[in-house]
């Protein structure tokens, strides 16, 4: 009897659903794939409005997929997907939460120079008021000031904010060179040590 059941099972298994997943999926019209596991790390996407060009993603990138280059008062932040390992380190490091991993993974391209193989963001650079060299992105300068004012000790807040406005728009070299002229030297904080 038991052997008969076994044979029956074998016969019926021929009529069960095939294990091959349909491609593209026919499960539902809005679902292209039969199976996308939860938490799948696909290609990274960057929000162009949120990105400030601070280079945090550049420093943590393990495959050296992220590159940043300045040209003609414009900073370009790029992820080259051919070298990206989808490790999501840039997502963790981004202070503005601009980078998000999506679950897109079908990015087969026929050419190295294909625009689909790169995640690009263009940012405007500020020019130094004195020497005219572009040195920092506009968004990064604004955001730095905001964050400085959030976290600073209330005792020095006023002095620092006035000093910051005096120096605003000058490149690091000019700041160092003309620090005395601007009367922003740190020696004026010496009196704080007594408190």
């Amino acid at each position, binding site marked *: 009897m038991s052997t008969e059941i076994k044979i029956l099972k074998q016969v019926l298994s021929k009529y069960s659903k095939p294990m091959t997943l349909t491609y593209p999926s026919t499960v539902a019209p809005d679902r292209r794939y039969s199976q996308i596991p939860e938490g799948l790390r696909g290609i990274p996407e960057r929000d162009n409005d949120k990105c400030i060009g601070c280079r945090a993603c550049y420093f943590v990138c393990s495959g050296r997929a992220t590159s940043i280059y300045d040209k003609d008062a414009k900073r370009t932040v790029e992820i080259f997907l051919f070298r990206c*390992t989808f490790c999501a380190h840039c997502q963790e490091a981004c202070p503005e939460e601009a980078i998000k991993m999506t679950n897109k993974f079908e*990015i087969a391209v*026929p050419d190295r120079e294909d625009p689909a193989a790169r995640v690009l963001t263009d940012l405007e650079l500020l020019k130094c008021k004195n020497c005219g060299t572009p040195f920092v992105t506009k968004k990064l300068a604004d955001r730095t000031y905001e964050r400085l004012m959030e976290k600073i000790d209330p005792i020095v807040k006023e002095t620092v904010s006035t000093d910051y406005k005096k120096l605003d728009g000058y490149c690091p070299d000019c700041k160092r060179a003309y620090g005395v002229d601007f009367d922003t030297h740190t020696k004026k904080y010496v009196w704080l040590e007594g408190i």
Partner: protein
Amino acid sequence: MGIIDKSRIYSPWLYHLHCGGCNGCDIETLAALAPRFDVERFGIQLVPSPRHADILLTTGCVPKQFIPMVKRIYEQVPEPKVVVAVGSCACGGSLFYDDAPDNYAILGHPDLLIPVDVYVPGCAPKPEAVINGVVQGILKLAEKRTKK
């Protein structure tokens, strides 16, 4: 288009060339060939010799010792042929490859040696991404066959 061209487009044979690396992409590629993600429904069949193949599927970055083999295997595949690079290592070198290629052991991506037609980035790409790449490779093969 003759009957031979037509049949070879409908059933391209695939040779899997593992250049080097961590074997992650190979596992995903084999999953794509196996019944669950079945590329055989597009007529693709895995062959054990490059002399029978139409599509050369490469994975991993190329160590310097493997350079002559890659060239030889590429030359053994009969024309017209299509090369599909699977994985970030095969596309751009990824973690193993420096921009200044002074590494004593590793050359980098196979694109430096042989012309690649389709790139499938991913670390490792999902089997569905591999299928997508191979299907694009078939379209390229059809182009090459009709041009001939």
